[in-house]
């Protein structure tokens, strides 16, 4: 037997088996591992609606900061955490609720009553009361909560990202 001949069919057979099998093993591990790490986990619960405020307590046309507690599914835990929203009552049945983070880099913005606009302290983005970008580096309007009004209560769902070009 001549093991040294690099071109012998035997050697070629060994090499193809070695690389073929290791390729299979690698694929059989890499694929499930990427799925494990990258696929979102199956959701346990449907979206919930959380009661955030009394409609009667909101001033029409002026943003009010409402603080409420919301359940958040966090891996294997469900945590109840404080969340805020800026609620603007348009009519008794119509409300906009803005997520409290600036769409630029996530700072908390606030309402400037004198100028009647939202101001982000970080890089001075400003937004109109309904969330449109007026100036500054923010790339898109403020994100909104899904809203529902039931029996005079404001119910909030999940935050929906606003469209870029709006």
């Amino acid at each position, binding site marked *: 037997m001549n093991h040294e001949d690099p071109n012998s069919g035997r050697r070629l057979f060994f090499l193809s088996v070695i690389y073929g*099998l290791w390729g299979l093993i690698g694929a059989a591990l890499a694929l499930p591992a990427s799925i494990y*790490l990258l696929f979102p986990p199956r959701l346990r619960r449907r979206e919930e609606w959380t009661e955030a405020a009394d409609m009667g307590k909101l001033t029409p046309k002026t943003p009010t900061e409402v603080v409420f507690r919301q359940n958040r599914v966090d891996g294997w835990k469900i945590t109840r955490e404080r969340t805020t929203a800026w609620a603007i009552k348009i009519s008794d049945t119509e409300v906009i609720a803005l997520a409290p983070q600036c769409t630029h880099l996530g700072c908390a913005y606030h309402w400037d009553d004198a100028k009647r606009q939202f101001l982000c302290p970080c890089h001075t983005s400003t937004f109109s009361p309904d969330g449109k970008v007026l100036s500054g580096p923010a790339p898109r309007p403020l994100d909104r909560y899904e809203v529902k009004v039931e029996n005079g209560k404001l119910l909030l769902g999940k935050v929906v990202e606003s469209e870029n070009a709006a």
Partner: protein
Amino acid sequence: MMRVVVRVIGWIEHRTGLETAIRSFLYEEVPASSGWQHVFGSVALFLFMLQAFTGILLAFNYAPTPGEAYNSLRYIMTEVTGGRLMRQLHHWGASMMIVVVVLHMIQVFLFGAYKKPREATWLAGVVLLLLTLAYGLTGYLLPWDNRAYWGTVVTTQIASKAPVLGPYLSRLLGGEGAIGVVTFARFYGMHVLLLPPITTLMIIAHVFLVRKHGVAPAPGDEAKPLKKFYPEQVYKDTVAIFVAFAILFVMAVAAHVPLERLADPTDTSYVPRPDWYFLFLFQMLKFFEGPLEVVGSIVLPTLAVIALILVPFLDRGRVRRVTERYTAFGVVFLALLGWGGLTGAAIATTPKTAAVEIDFSAPTEWLQLSPEEMAGVGYFRKENCVSCHAVGDGGAKIGPDLANTAIRKSAAWMIAHFKRPSMLVPGSMMPPIQLSDPQLNALAAFLLKLTPQNASALQAAPAFAVDGALIYQANRCGACHLVNGVGMKVGPPLNGLFRHRDKAWLVRHFRDPQAVTPGTIMPRYAFSQSDMDKICSYLLSLPD
């Protein structure tokens, strides 16, 4: 393109000497007799790396504290995509690792490959065997279910009984008093922080020694030309690794590893069992009672390890062919016989019906159903309702989606409809259901419980519980007993029954209640054997 690759490789080689190192590793010369019998070491190394890989992935979704550990493992198994596969790869990989390490050792032992000058290689191997067992021991606790908890109680108790060292060992394991957060942290720390680097160092030392002395030649090899490690031996190693991996993968996909109840220190009925590879030790303990117990738990295992260490120093004769090493074969045969006998005895004496094992990694919403609703699941299955109705899964079927019936219809409407479908729904194609009134009641009760959210979880109720509930209903147990808030309080409520009763007791009690509980008004029940099994399993599965 090729030129670039060659230049990059050249650059790296010039700076690091990596290529030369790899070449000299691969083109190592091995004796002419080397072959398939030498693959086990490589397989063991591969499995070790695989355990590290799956272990790290599991750690990404695992919270190493009691309670949290259980919840996060359940999350891995039921919610993370591919999580169950990862856990089962890690679980079965551990078992396979033990098997392969032992096979490796047997091979070396049979061939006498530990002889001068390879004693140190053997010793490093013995340490690696002990390390492998230590992984098994510490990893066993990490799911923090009942099995993990009680198995570890026994382990730490054994350690604490060691002569002289006992109290210190038990303090070291954090097992003084009871097993809790401290023990857990120590086991986890050992499993993921202490053992891996030690193992890696020992593997390096072991492989270095193998390379330094070369693979042990068989008598007569001197006359034959040496072979190269690559590619012929690498090919054999690869095939062996692939076979091992394929078996493991199939097991991980097909063989279900359950998650039991959350660890419960007050559960008096639990019979602890170690993992299969420790069963022989567990069984051996039964032969030693009272003060002799340490002989079985500490002395004999220690002697066995010492014997392993002494092997190369006791057997120092000249190298023989493997086919002439009768004593070695005899020793291996006896060891396997002893191990197999003890393990078999342990398995045979494991009470089959000690407790109902519910798999808590599967949906367990069904545990909250009343017996009537549960029996409804049985009729639901028997009548094969899903052949025409969707149940919250949005599939388009002939009949309406049943997961929404609760909001639309009352029980009375449903029962009337079951009997004469076309009466209430003109033109309905549904055939009338041929069941008695109480049975229709049960079916309606279950349907009222269905929502789109719980539909699949409720339908996943295990057969033993459904059958048990059918018997429960048929015998009208609910006329005296309370289960999940439904029934009467004439007799004792049955929730949490598994805490203070076992199956044997239930069977005796059913056959002759007065003999077991004098003065009881419970009538006798002469169930058939299979009905008895089902009703007992169901009753013992009822939650607190």
